[in-house]
């Protein structure tokens, strides 16, 4: 009799173990494995992010102070129109020109709109860039300088290569009635990056 009962009991225990212990434990294992895979992935990304952050930070910290200063001047966080006017007047005086008739926009306007040029590639977009929409602002300053054509050429060249970016967006002049001196009306555009808060 026991010969029959024992195998049946063994099979019954096996089935019970499989269904009531192994099966739920296996389901739990799958869940834990999936979660572990996700955590592993996030952990890899976090490690990579930290590595990249450290690398970038070190790289930026290694910039020479002069380069940093020039970068801050090229893309400032604030447009100093008074300083720009002083610089322009100084440049005009250096070339023997008379600086006058100044008109400056009171507020900076947002640079953006159609024709964005991604990654700052020179192209059709020119001033517009949806890429920096809301971040890049510009302010125009117009002025007149009185002098000769040669003096104006030299002044223009100096403005173009100014450390503080002054984009010449308008030039108007006539022949000056045949005289050597002439009035040159110039509009320059200054830029600032609105959202940058470098500490």
């Amino acid at each position: 009799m026991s010969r029959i009962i024992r195998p049946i009991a063994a099979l019954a225990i096996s089935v019970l173990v499989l269904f009531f212990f192994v099966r739920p434990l296996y389901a739990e294992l799958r869940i834990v494995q999936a979660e572990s895979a996700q955590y592993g992935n996030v952990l890899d990304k976090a490690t990579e992010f930290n590595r990249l952050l450290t690398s970038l930070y070190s790289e930026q910290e290694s910039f020479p102070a002069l380069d940093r200063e020039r970068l801050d001047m090229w893309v400032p966080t604030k447009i100093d129109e008074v300083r720009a006017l002083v610089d322009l007047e100084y440049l005009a005086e250096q070339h023997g020109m008379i600086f006058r008739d100044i008109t400056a926009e009171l507020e900076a306007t947002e640079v953006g709109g159609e024709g964005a040029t991604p990654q700052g590639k020179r192209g059709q977009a020119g001033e517009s860039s949806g890429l920096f929409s809301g971040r890049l602002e510009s302010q125009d300053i117009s002025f007149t300088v009185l002098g000769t054509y040669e003096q104006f050429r030299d002044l223009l060249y100096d403005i173009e290569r100014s450390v503080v970016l002054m984009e010449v967006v308008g030039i108007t002049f006539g022949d000056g009635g045949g005289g050597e001196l002439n009035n040159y009306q110039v509009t320059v555009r200054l830029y600032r990056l609105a959202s940058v808060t470098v500490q």
Partner: protein
Amino acid sequence: MDSTPRSSFIPKQTVGAAPKQIRRKRVFSVFGVLGIVMLVISVIGAGGIYALTQYEEGKLADQKSALATEYAKFDESKIARVQAVSEQLEVAQYLLDNHTSPSKIFDALEKNTKESVQYKTFSYERRPSGGVTLNITGVTSEFEKVSLQWTQYLEDMVLADVTMTKIGIDEGDATEVGPGQQVSFALTADIDTKNIPYEPRTQTEEVVSEPEVSVDEGVVGTSTDQTIDTDEEDLSINNEEGN
């Protein structure tokens, strides 16, 4: 009746002799073996799964701990600084790429203007959509020279898109240029900013470029006459064809 008397009650047996082997009959049932095998497998499987689950849970706990450590390493100020400088560099590159040099237009005009042409007004305007609009008016002594001047512009990369918008005689309604009268013209051009990029010059280049400019001006002055001769022939052919 047994005649042989029994000397002892103890059965006589040789000392050290092996007892008779007792043979038990064992019955192997397939059903029984299967049951045992299944039981063993299920117990081993349960143990294995339990151990694996414990291992995975331990691994997950380690990962959570490591992730917390990595998060703790995040320096908000460092992130903000890197982000700010990165953005600044990106914008700087964009502005540098789109920085133009209007003086190149004056270079082009100086190199390509005939001696007999005099400019009256000049207007340079950067369009909001990009590109530059150039408006120039001028005077010269003859119609042919206006045409020659236009042809000269077309040879220059910067001024290649110049369009003559107006040609007329400066005074009165005369159709021919009389004494004291001049031919006036107006031209406009949409210049691509790619053609007037800002290119920083080094000190060496600046020193070298000075004599080159003066030499070029001399060459332009000399070659202008030759060009006029050749172009006048072309122009006359065109006029004949036009007639």
